[in-house]
């Protein structure tokens, strides 16, 4: 370390010689590896973008016409929505079916993930068990939910059963990670205190671990519920799991009815917004409590 001289007094007067010295020091900003890498990447991306747009094969599509037609389609979808092939009450019921699918898979996932999460948390389980569970769960999570549904469709047939199993599967892996990480954030002292008084594992889990991390668990579970709702819509179309997603698939792929797609989109949007508002409220309440 450099030896520090005596403490300098602060004065507001400027000293030209000193200022020049400082300016010189400011101009010597060190070049680091990361800044070079970031700049090279940026330049490369700009170049690739320009090159891609130039080299596109546009066929006979006129850009302006295409843009106008797209806007026209969007206008039809969102400004003239109607329901033609099914009634309002039917649509509402189908939204409920989709919500039900999301709810069921989240609950199943949460219950199983609670147990696995406890075993995967290093501070209340053993290290090897934790590593094994976390590793397996990371592998499962790396494959998208839709793929898991299609994989289970081999055994269960394309439909709601495959969707429930596949979505539960992915929910478990997601929630195990979330739960075990919130358990691991727990203060070690509380566990130690209960161990020292002769309490056993289950008692410590239910009396110290879960009460301490319940807010995190609720907010993670709700986040997963929102994700599962979106996935459930897609599953209706992709895996024939029923619900509003299937109606949307029929409206687009079978009837080519843009206006009906618009109406269904509105339905899903409203439900999603309601969920969002509900989730924010719950989180606020939990924050007040914690």
């Amino acid at each position: 370390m450099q030896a520090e001289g005596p403490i300098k007094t602060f004065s507001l007067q400027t000293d030209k010689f000193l200022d020049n010295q400082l300016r010189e020091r400011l101009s010597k900003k060190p070049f680091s590896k990361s800044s070079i890498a970031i700049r090279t990447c940026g330049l490369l991306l700009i170049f690739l973008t320009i090159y891609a747009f130039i080299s596109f094969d546009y066929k006979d599509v006129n850009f302006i016409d295409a843009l106008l037609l797209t806007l026209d389609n969007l206008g039809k979808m969102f400004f003239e929505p109607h329901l033609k092939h099914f009634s309002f009450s039917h649509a509402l019921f189908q939204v409920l079916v989709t919500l039900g699918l999301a709810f069921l898979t989240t609950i199943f996932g949460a219950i199983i993930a609670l147990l696995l999460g406890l075993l995967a948390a290093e501070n209340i389980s053993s290290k090897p068990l934790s590593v094994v569970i976390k590793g397996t769960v990371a592998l499962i999570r790396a494959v998208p939910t839709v793929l898991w549904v299609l994989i289970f469709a081999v055994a269960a047939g394309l439909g709601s059963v495959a969707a429930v199993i596949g979505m539960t599967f992915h929910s478990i892996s997601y929630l195990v990670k979330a739960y075990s990480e919130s358990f691991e954030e727990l203060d070690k002292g509380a566990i130690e205190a209960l161990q020292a008084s002769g309490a056993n594992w289950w008692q410590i889990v239910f009396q110290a671990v879960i009460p301490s991390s319940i807010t995190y668990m609720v907010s993670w579970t709700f986040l997963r519920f929102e994700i599962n709702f979106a996935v459930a819509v897609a599953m209706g179309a992709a895996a024939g799991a029923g619900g509003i997603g299937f109606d949307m698939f029929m409206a687009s792929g079978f009837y080519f009815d843009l206006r009906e797609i618009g109406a269904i989109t509105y339905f899903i949007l409203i439900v999603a917004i309601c969920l969002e508002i509900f989730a924010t409220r719950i989180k606020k309440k939990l924050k007040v409590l914690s």
Partner: protein
Amino acid sequence: MTTLLEVKNVSKQFGKDTKALSNVTFSVKEGEFVSVIGPSGAGKSTLLRCINRMVDASSGEIIFDDAYVHQLNKKELKKVRTKIGMIFQHYNLVNRLSVIENTLHGRLGYKSTLAGALGLYSEDEKLQAARILQILGLEEQIYKRSDQLSGGQKQRVGIARALIQDPKLLLCDEPIASLDPNSSKIIMDHLRNICTSMGITVVVNLHQVDVALKYSDRIIGVNSGKVVFDGTAKSITSNDIHQIYGSDEGKLIFDLGGSHVS
């Protein structure tokens, strides 16, 4: 008085070459108030945790209340632990639960797994918890959440949790290290009172030499994992204290019998 706790030749090794304790031997009689003092990192906490096997000693014997603690299996160990209360520097309460819930945690060792996990306590246990909390001056806070308490109050909840275990021995790991002088005095007064009027043996780790001298019957001085002093609080000299802390003459701030030692 009978001997309640015997520690014989206890050593503890962390890793390959960190020796936390080496050949520690001492015994504690029933109803005694013993302070363990020594510099930071001398092994005081490890020593305390070896007694109830929160840390397993590498070698040596620990005999508590005629039980060979080092030989017990899991189930027997849990039973012995119910008879040893422990108090911590950072209180170690479950912050989201109320004062009485935290106090009742001390009963978990006596309960069946299911009743304990669900928090089903008997009327007697609740009444006993309330009684203890009242003695400790927390009757107004019974249903308050523990994170709304001050440090001194939290430590009193810690004491209540240990007392409801109906223990024979209290292990206190630096109970006043994070408290202001006033709360410290209240806590130490309570501990002394518990020892004198309830006959519970207290072993306490302390950093404050003057507090140790004032409250304890006996002092055990520990330095680098070895017992370097073991005697009554009255018989200790400033020379002994300097030896415990391994410091040169005149470099410590503490009071010995009213006169400033320099």
